[in-house]
């Protein structure tokens, strides 16, 4: 960079006003502007507009009228909203615990020295993640179907009674959770694997010399060293779990299936906004969900962090 090119001379620039400095480097600002313009149009504006919308009544086409805090009041007193919150948490628990557990085991196995064709396995475990969710939901729908479903076929053929998966409240949640587990276990395993690979081998060697068993070194070295990675996966799966939508929507429909047992918060938001045309209310639900995710992420963060310190 030649001395006259400007942007890296804060001492000289300080004498001028901010706008003058921006104008002087306008070409560079223009060059980086596409991101900011796109972000403003597709990121910032919708967020700001949804906040504005949350205080209005709007059917999507007609006139918007100011509605004060009514949308939020309605949300807080709506049994279906709270059911959706409860469902979302249940599905999150049903899916996240087995998912992270399996992911850790898979990562540990992939990291083990005796495994051959590692790249093949890594690609294999990652594949579910790039499969279309709609396709996944349709296949799982066929697996869990009440009549003519594959799981019920298996149960019947070993002489067990048929389970009405998609009629029972817990069955719907299990079906949705299993989809999440299937889809995200490999993804988390790859992340854990990266974490495992960053643990210096010397730590294990030192432990071995001191006479530690494999189990001891797993709990005393691997888990503590993986903590930041585990934190990361817990937070991302919290956010992902709270935003669950396509799986239940394709599997059990816009109403969350029988007894609304598969109604998640986002599905509720979607139905109220885009099926029932309560756009203002939908925006309010969106902000409610934002608060829930924020609170829940903080709680999780504290929990996972707290254990170590």
């Amino acid at each position, binding site marked *: 960079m*030649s001395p*006259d*090119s400007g942007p890296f001379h804060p001492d000289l620039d300080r004498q001028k006003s901010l706008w003058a400095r921006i104008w002087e480097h306008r*070409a*560079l600002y*223009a*060059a980086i502007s*596409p991101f900011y313009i796109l972000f403003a149009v597709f990121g910032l504006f919708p967020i700001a507009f949804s906040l504005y919308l949350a205080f209005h*009544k*709007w*059917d*999507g*086409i*007609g006139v918007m009228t100011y*509605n004060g805090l*009514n*949308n939020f*009041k*309605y949300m807080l007193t709506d*049994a279906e909203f709270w059911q959706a919150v409860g469902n979302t948490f249940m599905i999150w628990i049903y899916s996240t615990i087995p998912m992270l557990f399996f992911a850790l085991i898979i990562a540990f196995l992939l990291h083990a020295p005796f495994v051959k064709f590692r790249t093949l396995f890594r690609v294999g475990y990652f594949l579910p993640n790039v499969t279309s969710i709609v396709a996944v939901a349709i296949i799982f729908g*066929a697996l869990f*179907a*009440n*009549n*003519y479903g594959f799981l019920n076929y298996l149960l019947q053929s070993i002489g067990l009674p048929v389970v*009405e998966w998609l*009629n*029972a*409240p817990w069955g719907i949640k299990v079906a949705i959770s299993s989809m999440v587990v299937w889809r995200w276990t490999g993804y988390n395993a790859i992340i854990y694997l990266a974490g495992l690979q960053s643990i210096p081998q010397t730590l294990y060697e030192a432990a071995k010399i001191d006479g530690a068993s494999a189990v001891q070194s797993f709990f005393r070295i691997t888990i503590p060293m993986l903590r930041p990675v585990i934190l990361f996966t817990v937070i991302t799966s919290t956010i992902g779990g709270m935003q669950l939508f396509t799986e239940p929507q394709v599997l059990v429909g816009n*109403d969350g299936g*029988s*007894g*609304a047992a598969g109604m998640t918060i986002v599905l509720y938001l979607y139905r*109220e906004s*885009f*099926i*029932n*045309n*309560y*756009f*203002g*209310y939908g925006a309010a639900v969106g902000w409610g969900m934002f608060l829930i995710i924020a609170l829940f992420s903080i709680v999780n963060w504290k929990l996972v962090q707290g254990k170590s310190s």
Partner: protein
Amino acid sequence: MIRRKRTCWTAMIMACVLLISGCSVWPGQDDAASSKKVALTLWYWNRSIDDKLIARAKEKFPNIELTAQKIGGDFKAKLKTTLAARSGEPDIVALNDWIMELFPSEDRFYNLYDLGAGEVEDQYLPWKWKQGVTPNGQMIGFPMDTGPTALFYRADLFKEAGLPSEPEEVARQIDNWDAYAAAGEKIKEKFDGKVFLTDNIGSVYSQVLSQASERYFRPDGSFIGMDSPAVRTSWDTAVAFKQKGLLANADGWTPAWNAAMNNGEIASFVGAVWMKQVLQEAAPDTSGQWRVTRAPGGDGNNGGSFLSILKSSKHPKEAFELIRWLQSPENQLEQYQTLNLFPSAPGVFDKPALKEKETFFGGQATGTVFAESAQHVPDAFFGERYPSVHNIITRRLNDIAKQNADPQQVWSDTVHRVEREAASVKA
């Protein structure tokens, strides 16, 4: 430095050009002006208008440059987004039976009465015509096809269970929902509970309701209340069907429904005329066994569509001429033959096309049954909140049918829920 700056600007400008050229759609006003043609766009969904008819319309109206666009995916969502954006609207748009959701936005549509719709009003079924007219008397939807309902039943299963099997006889003996339920109990007994009378609780409720002359709202927008006789009767009938074990719990549009129909687990259902097509595709193995007769409890309607002209159109007169021609009785008759769209113009009901024998229905001419039904559909006002209220009730009924929830408990929950929705502050 100067050179570098210039390169930078060039890159910027090129990026902008790319961005703009990527999303620019310059309307072809110049072309239209030079050829002196009126440019009209039409939005419809697959199988709502015959493509050949559209091709003929282009010959019939040489002064109109018609761009007919088949909108795939969620048609309603796309239309509503376009209306909300107030840009890129078509001149003419097809609307489905959710037309009442757009009544609050009647000012976004031309009043077809102003364009001369009154001249042809007597050619169409009055109840159908009224569905396109808002409570303020603005006509925003021109009648396309309709969905008169009838009883679809398996003649072989009915016969085996000792029930009448000829359409006239079935209609005479099973002329109300109680008689229909009694027939269902006979079937259940005969086939040891392996064959069910009908598919699901929601369809029973909706079909009883569709035979009534009121729904949930009055034309002035006020809520009738859940104690309206129509709602109560429909609910009680649906719950009784569940309690008597007459439902297969097969939801429509699912592989389970198709399989149950094809395997002969369902002996009958009340459905609209377009179910003919759905049934034939779902249950090819049962061809020849089905018959159609007038529904127990009376005639009703499910579905059917409309054509509207948006206020943003610059050529409403030409658009209306086109609509009027597309949906003329003769062209409706033609679309009945090509796409199975049931006419809303009763003038063509006695034409040979409706009397054609159908092998899937054992050689019965089902068109005449639906034509009779279509002429006896009661007038009913829906109201723009009909879909959300109706949806609350049918999904609660599902809890009774599938989770054995206590009907009394569900009823009081539903009343509470629907009243909350009717008094909603949300929209």
